[in-house]
């Protein structure tokens, strides 16, 4: 990307239609403001998504250190490195942070970075809302870890079962911090989901009809719909929990007719789709990588997309398999066992489509592709261990043992972290303009791959041997010492792999070779523009002639002109066929999203200590939203082309 234009240079620019001149004008309009203020007021999707990705990685790092501390404690029997109270806080904040502060925000941030570029637009549909979502998420994350660092870390487990999490057994503010963290992150997740859906539905490049949308984008759309339906359930549940604790409602208090199982239903109605909310974007990333590195479009596009949609639907019919150890009717158990088995069908279809893609393509095994292979291997083990859990009699034996953490880590590391790291290596050149080291990338891949197996396979065995999960130590004569030590050594390998990855990132940022626009010969639109992408993404909005936007046209790309260059304007297209329909002006940078998020923060955090805080927060939020809705200053030469709707009712 070229440096920022100097006004003097623009003044002597001879040809106003030259690419350099156009670039200068668009950059002037679309770039963030200067300095800290510019950073705080940015509404650019790439700036916000990138800081969100860095934030999520930071939380991943902290939660990873927590995991390492727990593995040190468990490395030998009767260890006294960490006491039970701190251990409880560690595993609770580790799980909560990985789920709510890393996995979901991370996949959504990747979506918010790449979806607009892949579909050929200049920003997400609601730029200010996007910024608001990030700030809300950040406040929630800081809240959780502020709790931990002040010995007020949640200690009831990441799914916060009542009655343990209720006022009777968890006095103090620890669980309240957890509940409010949920509210913050769910607001952010819902906002991001709406961004993705609307951006994809209304701002696709002309010609990108729905049956030409890249599988990666489809995956993000399916994930976003799932977020819209699932997240309100956990937000409602956590609000009920907070109310039980703060103003003595009786939702979960069985002595007053409340119900502990109500919590489990509400939580897992969110919690099971959550697994797929994390996993489906992983499938999208895999699809993008497989196509590029096999040098052919994904085999069975329609089957892959329909499978993604099917997984999304089916994932809402599985939640009760988390509750097989509760008194459920037998038919219910059978139904949910069958549904759990059924979701293997669309998942299998996608896996076979990728294998067919690799088989019939000309695959290259660069680091991103290695992570794809690693994903298939780990996810298969994760899936098979899940089959055991889906069977009611087996589940009754191994539920609440170390088998569970073993299984979930295979699934989530395999299904989300490996595709994510593959995506990191794949898109790093686009984001930074520099290549990562292949050699370091491969070393860290193998460390991670071996490390994950050495860490989590012993946990599957320990679970079968009867070791309960969430215990801070065990006796020597249980015989669990050897496997636990192995698992801890594996955790060391993972840590080393992550460390090498960080080194690779730092080295590449400083001195990696220049990437150019399209280092991998990619299929989708992000590879058409310079690396890193300019603030406005596309000088002209490209026109798409096939599913593989860049492979369908190998030379110049047809494009659309006529969007204004003196203000932030995007093209809106029709939902199904992506025919140009209207122009839409976007807001300039503004501090209002940050202020609104702060108002939410004041309300939710103050509310933990005194319910009056909710009222204060609500008033502050109304003021902030009024500022949000107020018309921005009219720009010079502003003229709207108004189309009076054809209203039959008149």
């Amino acid at each position, binding site marked *: 990307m070229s440096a920022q234009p100097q006004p003097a240079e623009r003044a002597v620019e001879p040809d106003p239609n030259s690419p350099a001149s156009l670039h200068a004008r668009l950059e002037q309009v679309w770039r963030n403001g200067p300095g800290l203020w510019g950073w705080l007021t940015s509404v650019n999707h790439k700036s916000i998504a990138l800081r969100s990705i860095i934030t999520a990685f930071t939380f991943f790092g902290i939660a990873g250190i927590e995991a390492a501390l727990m593995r040190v404690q468990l490395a030998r029997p009767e260890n006294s490195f960490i006491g039970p109270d701190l251990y409880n806080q560690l595993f609770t904040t580790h799980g909560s942070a990985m789920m709510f502060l890393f996995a979901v925000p991370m996949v959504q941030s990747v979506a918010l970075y790449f979806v607009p570029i892949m579909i050929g637009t200049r920003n997400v*549909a*609601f730029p200010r809302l996007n910024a608001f979502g990030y700030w809300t998420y950040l406040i929630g994350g800081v809240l959780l870890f502020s709790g931990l660092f002040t010995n007020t870390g949640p200690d009831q487990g990441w799914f916060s079962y009542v009655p343990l999490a209720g006022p009777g057994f968890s006095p103090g503010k620890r669980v309240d911090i957890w509940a409010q963290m949920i509210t913050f992150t769910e607001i952010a997740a819902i906002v991001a*989901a709406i961004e993705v*859906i*609307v951006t994809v*539905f*209304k701002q696709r490049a*002309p010609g990108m009809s729905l049956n030409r949308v890249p599988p990666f984008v489809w995956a993000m759309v399916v994930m976003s719909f799932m977020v*819209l339906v*699932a*997240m*309100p*359930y956990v*937000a*409602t549940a956590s609000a009920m929990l907070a*109310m039980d604790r703060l*103003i003595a*409602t*009786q*939702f979960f208090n069985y002595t*007053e*007719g*409340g119900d502990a199982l*109500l919590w489990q*239903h*509400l939580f897992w*109605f969110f919690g099971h789709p959550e697994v797929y909310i994390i996993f489906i974007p992983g499938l999208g990333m895999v699809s993008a990588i497989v196509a590029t590195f096999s040098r*052919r479009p994904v085999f069975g596009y329609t089957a892959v997309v329909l499978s993604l949609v099917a997984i999304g639907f089916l994932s809402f019919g599985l939640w009760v398999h988390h509750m097989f150890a509760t008194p459920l009717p037998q038919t219910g158990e059978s139904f949910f066992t069958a549904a759990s088995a059924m979701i293997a069908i669309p998942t299998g279809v996608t896996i076979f489509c990728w294998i067919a893609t690799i088989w019939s*393509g*000309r695959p290259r095994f660069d680091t991103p592709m290695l992570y794809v292979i690693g994903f298939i291997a780990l996810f298969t083990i994760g899936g098979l261990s899940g089959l055991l859990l889906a069977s009611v009699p087996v589940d009754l034996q191994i539920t609440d043992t170390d088998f569970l953490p073993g299984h979930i880590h295979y699934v989530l590391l395999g299904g989300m972290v490996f595709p994510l790291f593959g995506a990191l290596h794949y898109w790093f050149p686009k984001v930074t303009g520099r290549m990562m080291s292949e050699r370091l990338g491969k070393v860290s891949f193998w460390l991670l791959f071996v490390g994950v197996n050495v860490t989590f396979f012993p946990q599957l065995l320990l679970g079968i041997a009867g070791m309960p999960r969430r215990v801070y130590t065990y006796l020597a004569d249980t015989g669990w010492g050897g496997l636990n030590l192995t698992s801890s050594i594996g955790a060391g390998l993972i840590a080393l792999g992550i460390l090498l990855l960080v080194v690779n990132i730092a080295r590449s940022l400083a001195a990696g070779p220049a990437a*150019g*626009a399209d*280092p991998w010969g990619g299929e989708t639109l992000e590879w058409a*523009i310079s690396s890193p992408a300019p603030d406005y993404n596309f000088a*002209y909005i490209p*026109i798409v002639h096939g599913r*593989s936007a*860049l492979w369908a046209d190998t030379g110049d790309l047809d*494009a*659309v*002109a*006529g969007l204004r260059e003196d203000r932030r304007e995007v*093209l*809106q297209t029709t939902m199904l066929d992506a025919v*140009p*329909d*209207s122009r839409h002006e976007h807001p300039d940078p503004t501090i209002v999203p940050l202020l609104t998020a702060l108002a939410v923060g004041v309300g939710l955090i103050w509310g933990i200590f005194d319910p009056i805080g909710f009222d204060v927060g609500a008033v502050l939020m109304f003021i902030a*939203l009024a500022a949000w*809705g*107020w*018309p921005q200053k*009219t720009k010079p030469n502003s003229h*709207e*082309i*108004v189309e*009076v*709707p054809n*209203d039959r*009712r*008149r």
Partner: protein
Amino acid sequence: MTVVGDISAEAGRQAERPLRPVVNVSDLPSVVYGSRVVTWWGTVGFMAAEAATLSACVASYYYVLRNFESWPPLRTALPDLFIPTISLIVLILALVPTYLFARAAKRFDKRATVRWMWVAVVMMFIATGLRLMEFGALNVRWDANAYASVAWAVVFAHFTLLLADTLETLLFTVIMQRRDPARYYPGVAEDAFYSYFMVAVWIPCYVTVYLVPRWV
């Protein structure tokens, strides 16, 4: 599907793809209505999330109901019907000026838009006031038992939607009266669209909280 043969991935491309404008969109409208504009879709997205939230509250209501032999529980009075029913009627009637201001907004008729918006705002404030009285009409405090908690949850969850919509309509009314920028007219129409939703989802909530205890 055939393999694309001429992709030289090994080499990659250093330069960005040249973009060759072949279509000009400068004469496309910049103010459009309904599903043609992103904010309409954003509104639908929030409706989906809010409907899911309400459904979680209503589902909790029926889940807890199974734990009781009588509903409402012993020594708990039935909720009043009078205030909630008046409140429901006012809400439904408020849709008339809402419909009229949306129609006027689609004609870019500022006078009619603002006039009907003020009528709608006043009616929605009345509905909000009545809703506050409904908490009293429940005849039980939120912390009395699980029945009370779920009933309060349903009414309160919808109260937040009502309050937000009322304040939003007020804000739009003030903006339209003072500034009336052309591109705000579709927003006004969407505000009405949201009001229809807000009133529609209240009907099953009303049936649940006020009628079901009389039926079971």
